[in-house]
C-alpha cells in the first residue's frame, strides 16, 4: 500500500485498524526525508532515533488497545524554531546558531508527543524566521527552499521546509509558525493547506520569539480537515505562555453547511497576477454555491504600517544582542547583514501610535467580520517566485497585503487551500480569515469549498 500523500485522517484509520504499523510508517517517511529532503533543502535534522523510539512505543500501545487518537503513530516534521531536547539541534535557520541546543521540548512538541505523533525531522526555515529583512530566497544556511511543484521556484517562507516537506510527501503534516505570512506563504506556494490559528490559541513556549504579540504556531497539511485534527492536539492554555487563551478548543468536523456568508474586501485582488485573479473569481463562483458572497470595505487605515511597525520594533528588541553585536553579519542573506539597523529609526511615539491604532484595527476588523463567517481573498497575490529573484514583500513595504496585516495584527485565524494553477505550473490559493477563535468556522468553510458540488 502506498502510504505517501494519504491525508492524516486516512492514515489514522489504517493505524487504528492495525492495517499499517507506526514503525513501518516512520520508516517510510524517514527514508523519504533522508533521500528526498536534500532535493528540496527541506530538512535541517532527521530525528531518526527519537522517531523510531516513538514509533515503537505507539505500536506497543495500539497493540495493547491504548489508542490515543488520530495522531497516534503519525509521523510529522517541525519547523526548526521549536526547541527539542535530547541533543537535537534547534538552529532557527541561522548559520551562527547551527550548534544551538535546548534541554527541553517546546510545548507544541510535548503536546504532539502526548498525542502519540512521531517527530521525524526538524524542518528548514528562513533564518530567524525572516525577521532581519530578507528579500530573496537564499536566506537560510540550508539553502533556499525549493518548491516540489517546480524546482526553479521558491517554496515560500519562512516555514519553507514545512511547506515543501508536506507537498513532497516527506511527512504527512508539519508545524510552522507565522508572524506575518510565514504559514500562508509556503502553504500557498507549495499547494497544501495551512492554518494560522488565532493568537494565543497555541502555546509559543519553546518557540523562537520573533515578535511576542504576533507569533503564532500552526499546522501545514494535505487537507483542511487534517489541519483541524492537528490543531486540536496542539491548542490549549499553557502556564508557560501567559498569552494563551483559556478558551478550550475541540475540532468540530461535523456538518456540511451550505449557508456560509463570505465577505470580499474591495480591491483584494489589486496587484495580483492574472491567473491568481482568474482562479480567485472561479473560487468565488464555487463559494456562491455554498453561501453568499458580498463585497465589503474596511475603513481607511494604514493597516500595513501598523503591523509592520510593531513587527519591526519587537523583532529588533528580540534580537537586540544579535543585531547590536554584529552577529547578523554571519547570516546567509546579504541584506540580512544590515537591514535591521534601519529599525533604530522608529521613534517610540510612532510605535505607541501603532499600538493604539492596532486596537482600532482589531475593533474594525471584528465589526466587519461579525457579519460574515469569513473574509476570503487570494492566498497570495502571486505564484511562487523564481529562486534567483528578489520578491515583493508586504513586510518590507513593497507589496499590498491588507488581509495579512489585519489578520496578523489583530490575531485572527486564517486557512489557505489550493484553488488552481497559475504561471509556471505553480499553485494558486484562496484564504478564509475568520473572527478571533473561530477556527472551526473557517475550517468548515474550507472543507465545504474543497468538496465541490
Amino acid at each position: 500500500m502506498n502510504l505517501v500523500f494519504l491525508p492524516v485522517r486516512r492514515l489514522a484509520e489504517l493505524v487504528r485498524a492495525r492495517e499499517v504499523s507506526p514503525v513501518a510508517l516512520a520508516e517510510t517517511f524517514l527514508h523519504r526525508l533522508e533521500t528526498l529532503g536534500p532535493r528540496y533543502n527541506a530538512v535541517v535534522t532527521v530525528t531518526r532515533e527519537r522517531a523510531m523510539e516513538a514509533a515503537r512505543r505507539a505500536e506497543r500501545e495500539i497493540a495493547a488497545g491504548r489508542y490515543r487518537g488520530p495522531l497516534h503513530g503519525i509521523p510529522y516534521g517541525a519547523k526548526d524554531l521549536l526547541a527539542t531536547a535530547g541533543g537535537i539541534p534547534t538552529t532557527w535557520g541561522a548559520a551562527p546558531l547551527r550548534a544551538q541546543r535546548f534541554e527541553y521540548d517546546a510545548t507544541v512538541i510535548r503536546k504532539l508527543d502526548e498525542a502519540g505523533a512521531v517527530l521525524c525531522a526538524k524542518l528548514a526555515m528562513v533564518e530567524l524566521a525572516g525577521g532581519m529583512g530578507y528579500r530573496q530566497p537564499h536566506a537560510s544556511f540550508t539553502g533556499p527552499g525549493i518548491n516540489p511543484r517546480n524546482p526553479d521556484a521558491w517554496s515560500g517562507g519562512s516555514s519553507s521546509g514545512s511547506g515543501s516537506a508536506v507537498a513532497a510527501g516527506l511527512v504527512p503534516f508539519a508545524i510552522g509558525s507565522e508572524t506575518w505570512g510565514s504559514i500562508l506563504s509556503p502553504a500557498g506556494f507549495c499547494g497544501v493547506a495551512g492554518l494560522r490559528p488565532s493568537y494565543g490559541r497555541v502555546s509559543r513556549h519553546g518557540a523562537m520569539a520573533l515578535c511576542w504579540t504576533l507569533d503564532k504556531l500552526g499546522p501545514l497539511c494535505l487537507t483542511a480537515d487534517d489541519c483541524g485534527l492537528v490543531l486540536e492536539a496542539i491548542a490549549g492554555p499553557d502556564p508557560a505562555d501567559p498569552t494563551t487563551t483559556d478558551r478550550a478548543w475541540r475540532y468540530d468536523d461535523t456538518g456540511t453547511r451550505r449557508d456560509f456568508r463570505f465577505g470580499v474586501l474591495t480591491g483584494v485582488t489589486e496587484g495580483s497576477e492574472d491567473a491568481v485573479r482568474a482562479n480567485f473569481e472561479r473560487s468565488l463562483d464555487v463559494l456562491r454555491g455554498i453561501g453568499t458572497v458580498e463585497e465589503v470595505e474596511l475603513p481607511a487605515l494604514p493597516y500595513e504600517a501598523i503591523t509592520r511597525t510593531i513587527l519591526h520594533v519587537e523583532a529588533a528588541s528580540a534580537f537586540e544582542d544579535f543585531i547590536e553585536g554584529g552577529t547578523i553579519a554571519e547570516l546567509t542573506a546579504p541584506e540580512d547583514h544590515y537591514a535591521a539597523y534601519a529599525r533604530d529609526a522608529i521613534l517610540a511615539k510612532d510605535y505607541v501610535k501603532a499600538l493604539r491604532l492596532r486596537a482600532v484595527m482589531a475593533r474594525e476588523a471584528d465589526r466587519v467580520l461579525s457579519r460574515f463567517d469569513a473574509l476570503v481573498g487570494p492566498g497570495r497575490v502571486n505564484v511562487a517566485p523564481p529562486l534567483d529573484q528578489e520578491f515583493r514583500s508586504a513586510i518590507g513595504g513593497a507589496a499590498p497585503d491588507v488581509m495579512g496585516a489585519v489578520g496578523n495584527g489583530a490575531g485572527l485565524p486564517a486557512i489557505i487551500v489550493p484553488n488552481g494553477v497559475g504561471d509556471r505550473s505553480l499553485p494558486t490559493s484562496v484564504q478564509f480569515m475568520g473572527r478571533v477563535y473561530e477556527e472551526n468556522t473557517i475550517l468548515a468553510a474550507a472543507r465545504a469549498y474543497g468538496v465541490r458540488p
Partner: protein
Amino acid sequence: MPTERGQDADAEVEGLLALIRERYGDRLTPEQLDGVKKGVEGIVKAARALRAVRLENSDEPMQSFVPYRADP
C-alpha cells in the same frame, strides 16, 4: 488615506540616518548604508501614515499592563 501635513520627509530620513550612521557606520559599507537608507525611507513613510490618523484621547494601546505577584 490621510497624509501628514508639513515636515520634509527627506530631512527626517537624513536626520534618522545620521543616528544610524553614528551608531553603526563603522561596520557598514557604502552599499549597505544605501540599503539602510531605503529601510529608513520605508520607516518614515510608515510613521507618517500612522501620525496622519487622528485618535481620541480614550484610544488606548492594545497592550495592557498586568501587575505581577508571585503566589501566594
